[in-house]
């Protein structure tokens, strides 16, 4: 007896996410007892474009896997090819890449903060964060010419140099961003009403997080100290930063991790600009890639794997991207069990899902 179960179709069209995902929410009252995710609404099949576009052109495709972590995708693909071809980019290229990578991490995290605020119905917080984010987009645009799609990656380096004075101009802006985020942090991390919506919502233990293969802030919020930037690719080896973790394991922990990562990223950007080497940005390449390699880099949402299988032809054999959201979905389905319908947006947002990344 008692309450019977209803099934609520959550998505694909649903304003909580700018992107489509479908979840069957099996509910009792407002309690979700089961959640079955379904993806594929933005599946384009771009991995197969390798048969139609040569390995250089694929950079543009890779960048458009996702508009939020666009830079990382371009970077990941390029780095894999570079590895296969044995190319070592110049220092300046490495530093600019790192800087842009961190800027896009910041924009991604701030975007996420806004979506999170929106998910628990805090509209003005959403507006505030997105207002701050515009500053970063301005920086990115000044540096690359695009607000979200940068088109600056190239196998062997960068397609375009970023003038030093432009980069110097970033420093005061960064301070403003950090200051703005500090104000929002007060609302996210210490407002009791917000805490009520975050604390204990969507708890994942450390063991589960590892077993389910979670990635990125989601994993770090469960207390696992794992950040692929520590692998030292690009210029991360030269940077001084720490891995942010939290032992909460819930939505609050994830907020905490992401907010503090913004600060870390800001500091990395600063370091990059300060230490920026002064030489060329491009090493010419010769021939076609031959071999296979998998690169793991730390995207805003966590580790992303880029696998390329090439056999010395103009068209590579296979490109495969495993994005962090893909890895986080099983854990999402798990956390959704037992939450309230009102928590669903929070939980869905909490993994910072990027469906276009996931489905490619």
């Amino acid at each position: 007896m008692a309450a019977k179960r209803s099934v609520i179709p959550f998505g694909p069209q649903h304003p909580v996410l700018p992107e489509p995902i479908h979840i069957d929410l099996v509910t009792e009252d407002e309690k979700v007892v089961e959640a079955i995710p379904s993806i594929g609404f933005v599946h384009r099949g771009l991995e197969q474009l390798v048969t139609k576009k040569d390995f250089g052109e694929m950079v543009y495709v890779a960048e458009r896997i996702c508009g939020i972590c666009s830079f990382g995708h371009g970077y990941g693909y390029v780095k894999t090819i570079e590895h296969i071809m044995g190319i070592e980019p110049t220092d300046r290229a490495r530093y600019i890449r790192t800087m842009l990578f961190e800027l896009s991490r910041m924009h991604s995290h701030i975007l996420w903060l806004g979506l999170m605020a929106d998910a628990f119905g805090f509209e003005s917080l959403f507006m505030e964060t997105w207002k701050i984010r515009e500053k970063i987009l301005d920086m990115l645009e000044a540096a690359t010419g695009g607000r979200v799609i940068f088109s600056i990656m190239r196998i062997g380096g960068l397609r375009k140099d970023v003038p030093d004075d432009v980069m110097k101009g970033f420093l005061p802006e960064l301070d403003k961003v950090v200051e703005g985020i500090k104000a929002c942090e007060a609302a996210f991390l210490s407002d009791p009403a917000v805490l009520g919506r975050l604390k204990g919502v969507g708890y994942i233990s450390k063991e589960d997080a590892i077993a389910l293969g979670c990635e990125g802030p989601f994993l770090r919020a469960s207390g696992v100290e794992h950040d692929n930037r520590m692998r030292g690719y690009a210029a991360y080896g030269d940077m001084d930063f720490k891995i942010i973790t939290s032992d909460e394991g819930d939505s609050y922990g994830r907020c905490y991790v992401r907010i503090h990562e913004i600060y870390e990223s800001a500091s990395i950007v600063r370091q990059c600009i300060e230490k920026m080497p002064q030489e060329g940005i491009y090493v010419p390449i010769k021939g076609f890639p031959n071999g296979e390699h998998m690169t793991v880099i730390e995207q805003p949402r966590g580790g992303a794997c880029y696998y390329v299988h090439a056999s010395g032809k103009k068209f590579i054999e296979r490109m495969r991207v495993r994005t962090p959201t893909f890895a986080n979905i099983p854990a999402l389905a798990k956390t959704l069990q037992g939450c309230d319908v009102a928590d669903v947006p929070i939980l869905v947002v909490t993994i910072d899902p990027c469906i276009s990344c996931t489905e490619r």
Partner: protein
Amino acid sequence: MTFANFTKTELKNLFRKPATDKYPNGPASLKESTRGHVSNNMDACVLCSVCQMRCPTGAITVDRKAQTWTIRPFSCIQCRRCVDNCPKKSLSMQKEYTEPDQIKKEQVFDLSDRQKEVLAEQARQAAERAKAALEAGKKKSSE
């Protein structure tokens, strides 16, 4: 932990000027480096079709017969690949974006008269060269 601690930010915002750009009543915020749309300096283009081959979306058509260079801005993803690869540096990336429209317009660039002459000249020369080569070949064979 303080209650409703976003109040301060909100009240501050209330008495500040809004952060809103005035667009469309003011200018759009375009940076120097902004990738807006591709434009072709038809004085320099030689209709070599490199851009057409390089364009990832096939937004460019080069018609040598009609001596036009056509771009479909509604297919162009502003990747700047064509610009980078143009051997004559005739292409450039402008910062203004393409205006929205009700139909997917094409933009046809006619070769400038000067360039037409240049091309015609080139073609003539090429033809001459070919002829010369041919003749030279003939001579050889006849020798």
